[in-house]
């Protein structure tokens, strides 16, 4: 039986409040009457989705895997991987991607946690602030790259501001070939700017699922703000953090258009290498090998995150 409180609230959770907790305990009471023909109905309803996933997900996935590991004659081989690793830009490519993820993701984690906690404490203006903070969610990586190009490019705003402050006379080529560091910083800032919102959304939703009473109880027992965060909010937020980090880490390894927009090909990353192989070099098998590499890294980090933030099922909210 459903709890009385939430039963007929309209399901339009404008703000994340405690009643959404109830969404978790979804009530599935199937009237499996023959007259309502519901024994087969769920399968009919998921059939299109299953079919679609089979055709557009499972099948192409098997193809790309096969292509990465086979020769044109259909023998198993690792030569495409050897080819990939042997390429002179490979080390740079891999290092760039990993470094970028290693720096961007922790910053985003801290920033999104800070923003989410702030949102949960906000009394007024919450909706507006939340909207502003989630705007980048709707902005493509290409557009984000262009946005930061407007700032870092030679005739961009940063140069104008620095000039206005009297710090420089001539514009600096931040994104030039000679200035690897500023190029990296620009890409990093663009990534932080663009993709923190997705983590924020997941964490705000996650905090909404934690009943306020836990924090209040901790406070009554004498825990300060930091202790409350560390001992109550953080552990209870682990499942959301897991989702947020996994999604974010995977997206970090897929970084592509931001980099292209800001640097062209001066800052090689894995996804860019896939694109290059596919189009410029027309070497589909090596592109597939890159794809497998990205997948392998993604899976490895997913497992790492799952392990790091593991929560026994019994200890969940």
């Amino acid at each position, binding site marked *: 039986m459903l709890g009385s409180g939430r*039963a007929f609230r*309209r399901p*339009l959770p404008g703000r994340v409040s405690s009643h959404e907790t109830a969404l978790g305990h979804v009530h599935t009471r199937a009237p499996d009457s023959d007259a309502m023909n519901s024994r087969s109905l769920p399968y009919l309803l998921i059939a299109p989705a299953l079919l679609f996933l089979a055709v557009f997900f499972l099948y192409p996935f098997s193809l790309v895997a096969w292509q990465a590991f086979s020769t044109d004659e259909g023998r198993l081989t690792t030569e495409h991987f050897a080819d990939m690793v042997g390429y002179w830009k490979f080390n740079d490519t891999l290092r760039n991607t990993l470094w970028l993820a290693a720096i961007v993701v922790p910053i985003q984690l801290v920033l999104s946690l800070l923003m989410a906690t702030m949102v949960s*404490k906000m009394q007024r203006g919450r909706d507006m602030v939340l909207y502003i*903070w989630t705007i980048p969610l709707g*902005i493509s990586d290409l*557009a984000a790259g262009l946005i930061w190009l407007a700032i870092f490019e030679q*005739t961009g705003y940063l140069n104008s501001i620095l000039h206005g402050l009297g710090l420089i006379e001539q514009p600096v080529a931040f994104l030039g070939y000679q200035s690897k560091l500023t190029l990296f910083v620009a890409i990093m800032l663009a990534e932080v700017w663009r993709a923190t919102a997705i983590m924020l959304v997941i964490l705000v939703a996650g905090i909404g699922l934690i009943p306020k009473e836990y924090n209040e109880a901790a406070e009554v027992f004498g825990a300060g703000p930091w202790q409350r965060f560390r001992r109550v909010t953080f552990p209870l937020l682990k499942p959301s953090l897991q989702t947020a980090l996994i999604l974010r880490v995977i997206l970090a390894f897929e970084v592509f258009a931001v980099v292209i927009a800001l640097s062209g090909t001066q800052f090689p990353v894995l996804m860019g290498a896939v694109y290059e192989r596919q189009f410029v070099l027309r070497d*589909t098998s090596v592109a597939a090998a890159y794809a497998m590499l990205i997948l392998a890294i993604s899976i490895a980090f997913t497992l790492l995150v799952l392990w790091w933030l593991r929560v026994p099922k019994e200890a969940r909210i």
Partner: protein
Amino acid sequence: MSTLVDGPVRGGRGQRVLFIATTVILCLWVLVPIYLLFVNAVSSSSDVTTFPKPRVPAIDLESLRFFMNYQGVARASWNSLVVACTTMVIAIGIGAPAGYALSRFDFRGKSAFRLLVLLTRAFPLPLLALPLAILYIRVGLDDTVLGIACVHALLAMPFAVLINFSLFSGIPVELEEAAWTLGCNRWQAFRKVVLPLVLPGLTASAIFAFVISWNEVFAAAVLTIEHRTLPAFLLQSLNSAPLHLKFAGGAMLVLPALFFIFAVRKYLFAMWGIANR
């Protein structure tokens, strides 16, 4: 702004000032770069490439006009729109029934299905564009709107399923049951009771699918040659196009996003609230 935002009730004055200041700074951090892009987009091409920039930007719609008339832009924008709409239809057409099934039935294989859906979310999906490019040539879907829309629908589907799952779960089963006892069959009850109640949310999830498609670069670039979408077109012309054109294109990409995120903002949180379970 400081009058619009307010922090915790308790805590000292200093703490509150810090809180509000941080909030404002973080808002500016998001807004200022967008603002700068738009200023660039509505500045003349010479302003865009001058150093140092004028303090007060002179509004000149020349670059935007130039962009609109630029070879292929109108077509790419139209393609983007068609692809995004097709994506929306496919994603919702497939995702809504699946979401309904997840919220209303306990069936064998339910958790496996949910896992499959979540798995796609945890997978670098644009990579699938590679084999699909070859596959499409074989079945004649290469370089077509439908071809890209299917890949975009794949990207949007996990979200569509999850949002719809959450939406339908928010409608008490009793409402449907009441309709059954009052003379409806399952379909009538759905149409007369459930549908009117989920319609706003359904629209939001459709818009979300639209945004995903509108923004997607990689797969679109891989799968199209003639029928470029706007992001794919911009990516392709990044090397050749002049600066002011890039900014105009960027603004063109960003503008719909502002409205779309505003339209779906409520549902973003509901979706993830349930997705974490």
